[in-house]
């Protein structure tokens, strides 16, 4: 499964379109991470706990999109987009969507 965020797949030819596929994941941060982040918030800098949390979440959303594309018989997803939104009270939704295609 190849993903790109352009309308084609450079070096390959698209032979069939299967339409929109999407995957999403909503995660909440746990209390331990939250307390560490609270302390880190005083001195500033990167909050590694949150970076990892959101990366895991993004990977899961991408994986769900891939599963959906595979079920359709696609071998690539083009024009992939991500969006993040904070759903109240310390939870974030990550959405990933794209167009499933077959390439040769």
């Amino acid at each position: 499964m190849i993903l790109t965020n352009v309308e084609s797949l450079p070096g390959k030819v698209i032979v069939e379109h299967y339409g929109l596929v999407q995957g999403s994941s909503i995660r909440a941060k746990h209390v331990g991470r939250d307390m560490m982040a609270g302390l880190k918030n005083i001195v500033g800098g990167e909050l590694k706990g949150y970076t990892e949390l959101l990366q895991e979440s993004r990977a899961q959303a991408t994986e769900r999109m891939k599963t959906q594309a595979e079920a359709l018989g696609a071998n690539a997803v083009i024009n992939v987009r991500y969006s993040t939104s904070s759903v109240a009270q310390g939870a974030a939704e990550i959405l990933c969507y794209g167009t499933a295609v077959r390439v040769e």
Partner: protein
Amino acid sequence: MGEVFVALIDYLPLLLLVLAYLTGRFVERRHYRSIKRRENETLSQALITSEVLESDRVVRSAELAVGSVVVSVDYFKRVLGAFRNIFGGEVRSYASVLDRGKREALLRLKESHPDADVFLNCRLQTAALLNQQGRGSGSVEVVAYATAVTFGK
């Protein structure tokens, strides 16, 4: 002893402010040094916002690359920002934090595909993280993604 303790409690916000200023400045300088060094190392990898690849070289592989980072604004800068809120205008203390976030995300994007020659259709997006009360907590996630293209040798 008791008096010292009481005085310490009285001046705690001020102490925190000074501590945040010193550590925040240290963290920021160290981060900028690291960013500048890594930017020089990855100069040969081009970031492009257009979707079209204007090259007749043979493409060996093309795949999605993502880089992300969560950066937070230190306590001192948040206080500066709150003052700025009274008079309005550009919040310069936040600008450097977001600048660091964006450059770090782009660097991680490049470092995730060290062999790639060109990154097509580069996108940057930011999302504010909310605290338990549903307000902005002063930390921001910056995500950069692009299509990493490697040319055949």
